[in-house]
């Protein structure tokens, strides 16, 4: 190399061939071209916590929704009071608490034996007061909680995004009125809305979903509005406007894609909020009704018997907490992925 430097050949002064010219183009981006979502996904993959969370959420969703053919209505209404309140018993495991033994007034007692239950009966996570398998209940409860949360969040999205975009886009008087309406709605406690829903509609899942959707969309609308306000002044939007593009088309082509990261992140935070609120409703006594169950109902039932049957609270609580943590970490991960500025 060094020698070559001094050994200049005449052809060194020839213009470069076309292909070589491209190689050295300073404008050329060396990395492969990535779309926004590919880029986000690449960043998300680097975030181990978020990635694990994503898997946990997926696994929970697959297990709980995949259980539908096995845990159906007739399975849910079946009760076996003779198997009521048994602790966990896993075949082949001999750890107190998981082998059918439970602390009864401070002493580990084999509850299965005491109740004269055959040796081949096992309940992985024990049973509830009607002798339902708790494992089965938790899987089903997770499904219901997720369904409530996801459907409510979708409604939330639909109302919130539309409202936010319209409010932000129109601006002026419309915006002002719409913001007042949000203010009013968010100053009515959700509970009152739910109670009324439960009376107007049949108590149960539908009313809870509707109530959640009606009371929770305001945050989304606020955020979307703020974002729309700033997008509105962007040159490309201005350009589209000047070119006479219709408002709906601008909204759909320019606004929605640009707020999509907010939507996804906000969704990740809304889902746990909805799960949480559903649990709260169960405590107040107006949650999901039998034979259906939810994590909230299970927790509330467990909470009442904690002194004697702690496992009935612990297991659903652990599942709930894992689910909530997963959604939160995933939300954080997505936020960082979509908005690299906050990435550290």
């Amino acid at each position: 190399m060094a020698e070559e430097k001094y050994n200049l050949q005449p052809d060194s002064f020839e213009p470069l061939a076309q292909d070589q010219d491209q190689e050295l183009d300073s404008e050329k981006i060396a990395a492969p071209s990535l779309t926004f979502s590919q880029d986000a996904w690449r960043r998300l993959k680097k975030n181990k916590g978020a990635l694990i969370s994503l898997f946990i959420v997926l696994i929970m969703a697959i297990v709980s929704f995949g259980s539908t053919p096995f845990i159906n209505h007739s399975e849910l209404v079946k009760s076996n009071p003779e198997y009521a309140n048994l602790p966990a018993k896993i075949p082949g495991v001999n750890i107190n608490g998981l082998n059918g033994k439970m602390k009864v007034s401070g002493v580990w007692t084999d509850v299965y034996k005491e109740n004269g239950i055959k040796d081949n009966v096992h309940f992985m996570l024990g049973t509830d007061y009607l002798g339902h398998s708790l494992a089965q209940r938790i899987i089903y409860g997770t499904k219901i909680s997720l369904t409530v949360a996801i459907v409510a969040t979708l409604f939330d999205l639909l109302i919130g995004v539309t409202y936010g975009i319209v409010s932000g886009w129109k601006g002026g008087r419309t915006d002002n009125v719409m913001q007042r309406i949000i203010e009013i709605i968010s100053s009515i406690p959700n509970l009152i809305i739910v109670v009324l829903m439960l009376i107007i509609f049949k108590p149960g899942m539908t009313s809870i979903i509707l109530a959640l959707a009606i009371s929770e969309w305001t945050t989304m609308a606020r955020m979307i509005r703020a974002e729309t306000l700033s997008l509105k002044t962007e040159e490309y939007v201005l350009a589209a406007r000047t070119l006479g593009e219709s408002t709906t088309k601008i909204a759909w082509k320019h606004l929605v894609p640009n707020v999509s990261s907010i939507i996804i992140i906000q969704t990740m935070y809304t889902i746990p909020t909805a799960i949480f609120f559903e649990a709260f409703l169960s405590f107040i006594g107006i949650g999901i009704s039998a034979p259906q169950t939810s994590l909230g109902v299970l927790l509330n039932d467990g909470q009442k018997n904690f002194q004697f049957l702690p496992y009935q609270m612990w297991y659903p609580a652990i599942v709930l907490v894992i689910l909530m943590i997963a959604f939160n970490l995933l939300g954080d991960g997505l936020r960082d992925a979509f908005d690299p500025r906050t990435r550290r």
Partner: protein
Amino acid sequence: MKLKKFATAGAVMAVSALTLAACGSKSSSNDSKQVLNWDETAELPSMDLSKATDVVSFDQLNNTMEGLYRLGKDSKVEPGLAKKTHVSDDGLTYTFDLRKSNWSNGDKLTAKDFVYSWQRTVDPKTGSQYAYLFDGVKNANDIMDGKKKTSELGIKADGDYKLTVTLDKKIPYFKLLMGFPVFFPQNEKVVKDAGSKYGTASKYMVYNGPFKLTKWTGSNLSWTATKNNKYWDKKNVKLDAINFKVNKSNSTSYNLYKTDKLDGTPLSSEQAKQLKNDKEFLTRSAASTFYFQYNQTQKRFQNKKIRQALSMAINRKQLTNKVLGDGSTVSKGLVSKGLAKNDGKDFADQAYVKEGVEYNKAEAKKLWQEGLKEVGETKMDINLLSDDTDKAKDSTEFVQSQIESTLGDSVNVHVQNVPFKTRLTRSEQGDFDLVISAWGADFADPISFLDLFTSDNSQNDGEWKNADYDKLIQASKTTDAGNTDKRWDDLVQAEKILVQEQGIAPLYQQSTAWMVKSKVKGIIYNSSGASYNFKNTYIKE
């Protein structure tokens, strides 16, 4: 109605609401003081005896006030303010000689206080929801209907200590009624001075019973009953004070019990199942029955086989022992066991109709299929309405499971657990298919239950109609009212018809499980009326 009130309280287990608790931690240092710490499951909403409607109020009134009689153990009538009672031969006039006694503010308590109290209660302006108990006292119904003046009520004071009560018709259980707080006296001056504030806080009250309330502000969660030194029989009152604490969570009250902050606590079903072998565990059975009402304005429930099938599909023994676990027992009929006896025989045993309350899977299936054919349906969707207390939820879930698993795919049960008053309204409006209702006796007589299912009774929500039944109930009140045995037979026959025809399906008789410290002695608990009487309660370490 009692049961409804329990439910109103939103109390977890509700039914026999008041528990006893004795002085715990503090007593060791001061043994001379007899103090009781007692758990309530709901606030005390009113101390106005004309307006009280709930079990907490009635129990508080029973311990701070006194009427002509006080109900002792097993609803035995014990002397109260009446020193001597004279009943006329036709049973329509009662003359009471009152003992000399004072209100807690020193005022003389006279026969006029009874007259004032009774008139105030039946006055429609007062809005007493328990005034119906005066039915039978002369002119009471007309006064409540606004047709007569309150002064025409059949009660009169002759001087200060003689009281005469006249009746329209014989009331066989009249003396028992007199032990119920609605019939206690009220101090006119105090009531009028307090105006609309009467009965809303301890400072607006005056008492004539064993205890008087302090620190009750109307909506707070703790108050104290202290010994009333003006009480005529104060030498037999041993407690110096009772501290009442409202805890709405059973686990909280049990935790307090374990740390001696409370000496008695009601238990939830699960707690009861776990503690049933403890030596401090006890169950208190209430004179209250839970039963199905079928909406018989619907064609399908007019079919007796359908009704029978639904009733027979339920394993009541499992319901009481495994699901409720609080000492509740399988009902023999509508009238609760232990409520009333004649010639030493319990009413519930005599009126027992086995087919009406038994569990028979095979028969249920058979009747169901036959019934379906008769009404021309292949599949039924049934809404099961009930309260939203924990126990109600547990029972409905079990009942749903039993019906669906016994009767198979041709039935679908939808459970609706709603707040108590909503349940009441919906029952009244006939907005249900199947409802689990509950009734608690106001006094220890079968009629307190059986009156409900006459054709025109407003509480017959299922609108079951049976002429024979109506006739028997009518006879018990009129032609046979004076003849104890005949009246008894009428009522036994009536209940047999009711259960045989499945006008309703009795499910279980309610009990409540408690933990009560063994040092607490002498609590009197009655299954009907105002349940608790602490007059003779004491603590023995």
